[in-house]
């Protein structure tokens, strides 16, 4: 056999000759036993190999292996599981939506006035938002500022949603034509005292703007549905309002498969009932007679809070924690995992939907704490990465909570303990608050 090449020498040093064909490996070993020249080259290559390993070792990070159980739980919580039946229903629903949209278009062709709301506004003013694809801190800040600067509009643009599957915008438009579109511009002045608690969400959405402003803005909707078809049928009210004619601050949006948290205080969606009558039971709040039945979540609340990253050493006192609420393996995406959008008994400032087109990207809830600081509660569907959010402001604590129905991100300039307490109140079974 001729001399061994350097590749084979490295394979020998790496113990990789076993991966060579047996005869070839055997020949190399035998040659190295008898060839002094090749043995010398082998020692040279050994030094090269060790030198390279030393260089690479200089850039070896310290690795701590995170818990496998937590990783497994994360995967279980984030892997959508659908039974064959539900897949079929989902597909049928999708197909039916398309047929419904086409059929409505056919019926309405040539009769554009059918879509004109009774208030005289054009329906095309309820248009998809020209918004960024994801949440941006600037939007939240802007929302906070708007609320702070305009106390009269503190309750403005309140939106209540229930169930995760909002209808496509087209369906919303159709529904807008079928149900009264309320341009409730006067109610801002008659806004009751600051709203507190989850029940506040049931009060009439209002907005503070002048009569002469053209409507181009927010779609504020009561939704009470659990799938796309049901949403389209039950969308019982679309309220058009605006504070900025250039952009829409919220819209009816939602991926049919992305369940979102419920709002505690949404009145049962019965479009045939007058709005005032529908508001009454929920506005009464404590009576609880209109409360839909909900499953208790008390056992899930912060049972295993894990620090995912601590305050950076730069001195910026921002604390970020990610919390896993136990093993969610039994909570399928179809589960009725109910919790409030708002922290009960904390003044509600604003609720906003975010998203592009028919794709829901969650809601932002702003609430005023007793200290006067603003609490942000951001609800994200499971397919929206909370890391797409911008950093919390310096001095703010952040909690990221993973639920089967999505993510809850809470931010406020308070201690971690205080934020955890608010989280517990948020996740508390609403029926226990009575």
């Amino acid at each position, binding site marked *: 056999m001729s001399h061994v090449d350097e*590749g084979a020498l490295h394979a020998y040093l790496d113990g990789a000759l076993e991966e060579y064909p047996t005869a070839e490996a055997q020949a190399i070993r035998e040659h190295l036993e008898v060839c002094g020249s090749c043995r010398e080259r082998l020692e040279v290559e050994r030094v090269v190999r060790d030198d390279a390993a030393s260089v*690479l070792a*200089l*850039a070896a990070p310290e690795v701590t292996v995170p818990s496998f159980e937590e990783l497994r739980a994360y995967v279980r919580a984030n892997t959508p599981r659908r039974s064959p039946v539900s897949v079929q229903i989902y597909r049928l629903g999708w197909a039916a939506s398309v047929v419904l949209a086409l059929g409505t278009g056919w019926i309405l062709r040539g009769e554009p006035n059918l879509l004109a709301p009774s208030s005289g506004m054009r329906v095309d003013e309820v248009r998809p938002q020209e918004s960024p694809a994801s949440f941006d801190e600037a939007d939240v800040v802007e929302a906070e500022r708007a609320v702070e600067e305009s106390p009269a509009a503190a309750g403005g643009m309140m939106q209540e949603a229930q169930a995760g599957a909002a209808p496509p915008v087209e369906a919303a438009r159709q529904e807008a034509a079928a149900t009264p579109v309320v341009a409730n511009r006067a109610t801002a002045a008659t806004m009751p005292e600051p709203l507190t608690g989850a029940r506040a969400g049931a009060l009439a959405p209002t907005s503070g703007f002048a009569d002469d402003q053209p409507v181009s803005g927010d779609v504020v909707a009561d939704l009470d549905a659990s799938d796309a078809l049901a949403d389209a049928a039950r969308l019982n009210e679309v309220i058009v309002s605006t504070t900025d004619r250039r952009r829409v601050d919220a819209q009816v949006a939602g991926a049919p498969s992305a369940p979102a948290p419920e709002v505690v205080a949404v009145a049962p969606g019965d479009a045939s009932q007058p709005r005032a009558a529908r508001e009454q039971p929920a506005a009464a709040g404590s009576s609880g007679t209109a409360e839909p039945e909900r499953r208790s979540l008390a056992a899930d609340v912060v049972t295993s809070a894990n620090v995912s*990253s601590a305050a950076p050493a730069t001195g910026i006192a921002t604390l970020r924690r990610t*919390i896993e609420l136990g093993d969610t393996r039994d909570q399928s995406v179809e589960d009725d995992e109910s919790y409030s959008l708002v922290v009960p008994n904390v003044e509600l400032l604003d609720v906003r939907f975010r998203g592009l087109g028919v794709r829901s990207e969650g809601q932002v809830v702003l609430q005023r704490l007793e200290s006067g600081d603003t609490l942000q509660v951001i609800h994200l569907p499971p397919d929206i990465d909370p890391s797409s959010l911008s950093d919390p402001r310096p001095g703010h604590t952040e909690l990221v909570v993973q639920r089967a129905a999505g993510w809850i991100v809470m931010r406020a300039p308070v201690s971690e303990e205080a934020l955890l307490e608010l989280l517990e109140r948020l996740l508390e079974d609403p029926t226990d608050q009575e």
Partner: protein
Amino acid sequence: MSIDWNDLYRSTFPDLVRFLHRKVWDAERARDLAQEAFVRALAHEPKKPRAWLFQVAANLAKDEARTAIRRKKHLVLLKAEAEVRQESASDPASEMAERERWGQVKEALDMLSEKDREALLLWDAGQSYTEIARHTGLAVGAVGTTLARARRRLAEAHNAREQVDVAR
């Protein structure tokens, strides 16, 4: 054959982080990407999980470099890990020295061809010749030659860099 994912995770995670670290040069990001690779593996349950993990990790690192999207971690990590990170971050001098070391290694690795570098990093992360061959498209018999060349160039480049630093 059923896979013991727990065992695979414990044995492979550090290798995967090391492999990714030499690509993204950010220890925390490397951990995140390694976790993400495992999340995908657990969801897909590939037949050859170790090779699959490194392939996915390489792709993730490539995407990372391509898009350079800033992302924040959201996976749940152990408290201990956060504490370790805090401790290491609390010493700016050692952190700076560490970054300088990493910079030297990165420069040396950048002197290699992409294929040589990939083979070397895979080997250093514990991949076998067969796995490296599958990952890089080389013949098994050519992996040794590739590694020999990569090791020599890496050592030479690093020595040259050190000599420059000493001369200063």
